[in-house]
């Protein structure tokens, strides 16, 4: 027995030793040495916590930043995950310097925890370096002829959208038709009637994240997928047999970024955050499929990002606080009630 265990242990350690000589770096970007596990040992290492979707953008933004004078020698450690999970992790003490989330309440959580300065959204773009719009993904050739929000309510159309209570980021998807049908919240009932019909009659599965909703759709569930334009562009580029239709009226997705205060790397993190708003970075962002906030760059990419006839924003609906408490709050929010009814 003892020799057996000893051999097993030896084999394990040998396996460890064999592979231990390799360094540590991501599949895509350069990383600081693997030994530098403790955050902040090197003052020039910025820890980035972001939601998963913009990883494609950061993969090009970070090397570009490192070529600028401000970014020379700055190393990045990047962690990606669901927006809410990432935000809760940072609030629980994960060593972050720079954060980028899908929805503003995830930054607000860090403001409340005293980790992000309340003035994080004081810059010209209100702390939003990029965004997207809500779009409808359909199967190649659009066999069901889905072009407008009303088309989703046609009999026999099954819609896939993540459960907004499993994924905060999925709230955008429902806010789009709500804002359109309610005229930006003016006629609440009309908006809720639409959502009610959509959720109760046309939404069957309720994946817990945008990525899973996409996977379920690609694997044959449903006829239409509510998604972000950048995600739609991404899966189209990958060659999946889908296309997307952006209705003439839809919703603006705004993904905030912020710098944590009090970290030893705050200056570098700030420099990176500022860099995101430069025309150079905005172009890279646009190329990665996100809508830039810089007006000049947006003009340049107008062909790629057609401007809808009407683009509603979260501010039109009164901001996240109002939206969360009136629509999504557990048991009392109007959309929460609809979801509760949907499966009774």
């Amino acid at each position, binding site marked *: 027995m003892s020799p057996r265990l000893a051999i097993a242990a030896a084999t394990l350690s040998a396996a460890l030793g064999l592979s231990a000589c390799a360094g540590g770096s991501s599949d895509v970007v350069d990383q600081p040495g693997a030994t530098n596990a403790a955050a902040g040992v090197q003052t020039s290492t910025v820890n980035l916590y972001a939601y998963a979707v913009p990883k494609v953008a950061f993969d090009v933004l970070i090397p570009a930043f490192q070529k600028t004078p401000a970014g020379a020698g700055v190393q990045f450690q990047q962690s990606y995950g669901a927006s809410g999970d990432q935000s809760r992790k940072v609030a629980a003490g994960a060593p972050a310097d720079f954060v980028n989330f899908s929805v503003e309440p995830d930054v607000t959580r860090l403001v409340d925890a005293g980790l992000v300065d309340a003035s994080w959204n004081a810059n010209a773009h209100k702390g939003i370096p990029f965004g997207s719009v809500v779009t409808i993904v359909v199967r190649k050739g659009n066999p069901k002829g889905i072009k407008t929000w009303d088309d989703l309510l046609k009999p026999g159309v099954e819609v896939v959208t993540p459960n907004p209570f499993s994924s905060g980021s999925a709230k955008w998807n429902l806010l789009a038709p709500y804002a359109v049908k309610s005229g930006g919240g003016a006629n609440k009932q009309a908006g809720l009637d639409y959502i009610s019909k959509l959720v109760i009659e046309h939404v069957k*599965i309720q*994946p817990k994240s945008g990525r899973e909703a996409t996977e*379920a759709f690609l*694997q044959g*569930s449903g006829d239409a997928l509510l998604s972000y334009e950048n995600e739609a562009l991404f899966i189209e580029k990958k060659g999946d047999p889908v296309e997307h239709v952006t209705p003439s009226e839809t919703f603006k997705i705004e993904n905030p970024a912020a710098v944590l205060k009090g970290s030893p790397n705050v200056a570098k993190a700030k420099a990176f955050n500022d860099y995101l708003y430069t025309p150079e970075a905005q172009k890279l962002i646009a190329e990665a499929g996100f809508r830039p906030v810089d007006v000049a760059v947006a003009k340049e990419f107008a062909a790629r990002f057609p401007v809808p006839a009407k683009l509603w924003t979260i501010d039109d609906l009164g901001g996240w606080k109002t939206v969360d408490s009136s629509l999504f709050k*557990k*048991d009392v929010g109007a959309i929460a009630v609809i979801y*509760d009814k*949907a*499966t009774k």
Partner: protein
Amino acid sequence: MTIHTDLGRSAAAAALLHPRTGGSDGAETTAAGPDPVGSDRPDHRDGSSASTSRLGGIRSLGVGVVTLWLSVIVLLPLAALTVAAFGDGWAGFWEAVTAPAALAALWVTVVVSAGVALLNAVMGTVIAWVLVRDSFPGQRFVNAIIDLPFALPTIVASIVLLSLYGPNSPIGVHLNATRWGLIVALAFVTLPFVVRSVQPVLIEADREVEEAAASLGASNLTTFRRIILPTLAPAILSGTGLAFARAIGEYGSVVLIGGNIPRETQVASQYIQQQIEIDSPQAAAAVSVALLAIAFATLLLLRVVASRSQRREERAP
């Protein structure tokens, strides 16, 4: 129940072997808590040992270590969870657990998990028997793949199960967003438990008794029911309990194929994740504690059943 061990490998130990008959003394100790069987039998454990006092000292030290270990690793995190669950008092806990969606998720979880545990109890025993007693080409290969569901990241299991049994199923099986989908996913991740519990016992168990029974004219079914099953019962129950516990806690593998439809295929773990996402950690903790209580009660029940079956076995002539 005679015992077969590989004592031959150690000459010194082989010399110690003495003829054995009848029931094993070790087996009676399955009972949780004070052992009722031990009391009506002559307890030779303490009397026969020359170094009772020394043993007592070592044992209490050992018990201390075991308790401390289980406390730090298991009990303290669960205690932290329980405290969080009662953060808003008993009323808050009760409200969180009895919310209709929470009750529905708990119900779906328990029903499906019980079904899965039962399925794997039967199939796991059959598989273990086939792996130990049968012999066929490729047996080792089959034995080797049993544990793979554990090593497979659940998200990959989830994608693959969806592509096999989802809307685009190549074999025409559509389980997407149904409870059958849940059952397949959970059966997949809990398969190794019963197999791996029963296997070692089956290897150690003595076949002579079975053969004797058969030669005395017992039918296969009788031999199985009277000889094999009682021997295996504790292992089967233990494996089933683990499979049940794992099934009610499982998360990743059911996400895609289950469809997360509240009241139909949303399992408790998904409900808990939702509560965390909407910043209601107290409700998440409360439902987790409820789930724990269910698991605890089930495991306790199984253990009582196991000890009963064992005592019956010992009393049998």
